[in-house]
């Protein structure tokens, strides 16, 4: 006799609604949850806390990450049933085996950590190439099947992770009933500029919620929110890989879920490469602009913004001086404005474009990409994106050089600023986004 994973699962899925365009998530999709993984889930059973760990070739760091997570769980939640689920994107360095090898159970009674009960670490391979969207979907499916009350997703390369992070992300959900916990970090003022200059202010202005890190590799969510997101349409539309994390945050906002922020600690500094900007834009700004269309009924009615409850000392800014190649930024900005003129003519309003052309040739000392111009730029991009004046992906790519210009201005303005001044500058930018929201609304409605 054998456990037929599939036949056990079909009873869990409600039948497909006939003739609808929207299909509910079919768990028996051929390649989605493997039989073996399902069997492992059956053995784990219902849990209270679930930790998701998407990996790809992380053998160097994964052991200590998992052990840190384990001690975090055992310290803060020794009596709760917990599981660590590794969604692996085709590692070839033995990452999954390392994860399952340090599972805490009675088969391997050699763990150094003292545990009241079994703490499974299980692993599944969701594909042969890494795709964060599929990894997250796997984790959500597992959380749904195991009826986890609180779930967190952790980043497998965080060298700065501490065991308290588990508690900081889980406790608001488990004890205080929140649905989404986004982190805040201590990071350098020149890092995360896309977040501070675009994503945070724009989401704040449009959706009315002040989430400092709406796109993040580490966050916590309740089982309720996870199941809601899992069952939403949108997994099969081919763009499921890009920016799922952002769409998750937006789904929490539009669904009226309770959101809070929790200060974790120092953010892992990932190796920086110039080629990362366009993929970053694709994963964040692209999904954001796409979401504006379907979320229009929500954000069109919101005015102002509300802070979310925050635990810990709030985001912290490190002020140590860091080298950034300003000349290059300025060059790329002005080259972009010059070379992409034909594209910008289709996207931007004439006045905005003229203004950009005016500041492009300015020297380093005089160069300034003021907040208001930047906000107008972004909003016009959003409106053009929605109307698909050119291919949407090209719209996103075209934003890259302009962002560089804005980043340069931000760096210059904050070169000698104190932590508080940096925060004030960001706040000022946010208010500018909020102030010009009617402009976006007007553009949105004009050519509909």
């Amino acid at each position: 006799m054998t456990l037929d994973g599939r036949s056990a699962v079909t009873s869990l899925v409600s039948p497909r609604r006939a003739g609808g365009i929207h299909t509910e998530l079919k768990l028996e999709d051929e390649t989605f949850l493997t039989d073996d993984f399902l069997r492992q889930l059956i053995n784990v059973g219902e849990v209270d806390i679930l930790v998701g760990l998407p990996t790809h070739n992380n053998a160097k760091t994964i052991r200590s990450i998992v052990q840190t997570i384990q001690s975090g769980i055992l310290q803060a939640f020794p009596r709760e049933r917990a599981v660590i689920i590794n969604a692996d994107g085709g590692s070839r360095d033995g990452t999954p085996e390392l994860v399952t090898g340090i599972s805490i159970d009675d088969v391997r009674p050699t763990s150094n950590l003292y545990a009241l009960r079994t703490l499974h670490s299980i692993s599944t391979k969701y594909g042969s190439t890494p795709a964060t969207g599929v990894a997250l979907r796997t984790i959500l499916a597992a959380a749904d099947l195991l009826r986890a009350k609180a779930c967190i997703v952790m980043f497998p390369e965080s060298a700065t992770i501490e065991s308290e992070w588990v508690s900081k992300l889980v406790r608001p959900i488990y004890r205080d009933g929140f649905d989404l916990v986004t982190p805040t970090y201590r990071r350098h003022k020149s890092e995360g500029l896309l977040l501070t200059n675009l994503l945070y202010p724009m989401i704040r202005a449009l959706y009315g919620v002040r989430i400092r890190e709406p796109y993040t590799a580490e966050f916590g969510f309740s089982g309720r929110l996870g199941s809601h997101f899992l069952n939403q349409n949108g997994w099969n539309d081919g763009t499921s890989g890009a920016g799922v994390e952002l769409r998750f945050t937006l789904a929490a906002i539009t669904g009226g879920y309770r959101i809070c922020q929790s200060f974790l600690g120092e953010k892992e500094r990932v190796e920086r490469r110039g080629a990362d900007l366009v993929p970053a834009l694709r994963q964040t700004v692209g999904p954001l602009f796409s979401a504006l269309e379907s979320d229009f009924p929500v954000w069109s009615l919101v005015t102002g913004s509300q802070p979310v409850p925050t635990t810990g000392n709030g985001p912290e800014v490190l002020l140590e001086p860091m080298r950034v190649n300003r000349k290059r930024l300025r060059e790329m900005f002005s080259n972009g404005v010059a070379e992409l003129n034909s594209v910008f003519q289709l996207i931007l309003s004439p006045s905005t474009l003229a203004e950009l052309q005016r500041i492009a040739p300015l020297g380093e000392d005089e160069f300034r990409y003021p907040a208001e111009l930047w906000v107008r730029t972004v909003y016009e991009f959003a409106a053009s994106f929605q109307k698909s004046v050119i291919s949407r992906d090209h719209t996103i790519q075209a934003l890259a050089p302009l962002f560089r210009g804005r980043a340069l201005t931000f760096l210059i303005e904050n070169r000698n600023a104190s932590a508080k001044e940096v925060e004030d500058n960001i706040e000022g930018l946010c208010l500018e986004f909020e102030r010009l929201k009617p402009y976006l609304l007007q553009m949105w409605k004009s050519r509909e």
Partner: protein
Amino acid sequence: MPVNTDALWYKDAIIYQVHVRTFHDSNGDGIGDFQGLEQKLDYLHELGVSAIWLMPFFPSPLRDDGYDIADYNAVHSSYGTLEDFHKFLDSAHQRGIRVIIELVLNHTSDQHPWFQEAQSSQNNPRRDWYVWSDTEIRYQAARIIFLDTEKSNWAWDPISKSFYWHRFFSHQPDLNYDNPAVREQMWNVMKFWLEMGVDGFRLDAVPYLVEREGTNCENLPETHHILKELRRKADEQFPGRMLLAEANQWPADLRPYFGDGDEFHMAFHFPLMPRMFMGLKLEDRKPITEILHQTPEIPPSCQWSLFLRNHDELTLEMVTDIERDYMYDMYAESKMMRLNLGIRRRLAPLLNNDRRRIELMNGMLMSLPGTPIIYYGDEIGMGDNISLGDRNGVRTPMQWSGGWNSGFSVAEPERLCAPLIQDPVYGYPAVNVLSQKESEHSLLHWMQRIIAIRRSTGAFSRGSIDFLYPANHRILAYLRQLGRETVLVVNNLSSTAQAVELDLRPYKGNILIEMFGNNIFPRVGDLPYLLTLGPYQFFWFRLRRV
């Protein structure tokens, strides 16, 4: 039916722990006695027990329920005479039931003539039979056992103006085992009872016999030496009698009490018991398998003794702080239930009177390696009365019927040695032997059934144990094997239905026969063996190859 003469009878025994005081009263004074106990031997025989362990019945001021002994060679007047005891002993043997009695070696009552002599003056010949000191500072490293009542291991004697040593209550002074006269006398006590025909002794508080400065005064080599000596003499003059050690220690520390098969025959496996309860609440077999994994091998002639509850509190000494807090929160929400680092409740109330859990725990008791001990009243699911002080809440009169005094005694209810349980759930009108005998599916009948099945194969009592570690951690599964007999035990520790796949590849080709209904289950093939179990359900399978 005469008692079988197998020297290792204690391995196959099913032991029934009973206190003569609260079992059955024959003379109407409200206190149980030996004649009354004798009258109930048929009940015990029918239940299927093969040995009775009697709690202390020697003369005593009863300040510790008989563990404070005032005369080692007599029977307390409330329970009858030596003659009565002898007669009871013979009746038991006729039914094939052996009798194990308690012997408190470590200390006597302060009312014992020996102590009264010893304290009368510092020059008395018996002075040295106890441990005296002018100061309280000796043996500082020794822990206090009865934390809730005692503040020190030394007590002041106003008569001889010095301190005497007591590991338990202050009215129980410790005997001085460095004195050869004491050792000689205690052997004579044992011999007295062995000559009468008693089959074995439970030796109380054996780790504490000898004290030495700079140690914790437990498990010392001198203690083991004394015990080995007693064993040697018993083997010489009374072969086939059994010595059972009461030593609440970690398994590694318990191991020396078996010696090389030349010390104790049996010892209680104290650390396992709270972990069984813990595993049940956690719905995780980890605590149970871990402690058994840490349990050392014992000599082939020795046997562990397993129990779920006894007359004492459910002790949480041998668990970590986290585990203790967990057990308190899960099983003893009210502070009144907690005593001396333990929980003073009976089996049924601990398990919320849940018949399935009671069956599961008994199933594990009967199938894990060791001789099972049933505490009187647990076979019908008796309740407890925690408002009675100390540990008396679990020592209430046996409930025989729904009638007068529950059939325990014809005396006036106010004269009973302890009040009967009266609440609507556990009270004697609801829970009693008579009504359970009438009911086909009562707990009593179920206990009879499972005892009979346990006795039907030597794999349980003498077989090896091999744990299976299925990925589903809520399932505790193991194989018991003796010669060519193999039994598979699968327990579902969780409150919800479970599916489990077992790796039975070494047993491929065997047909499984479920032992309660004797129905055949599918044969073991190449693939993992799938079983589904309801909440708290367990299976015993005999593996048979045709």
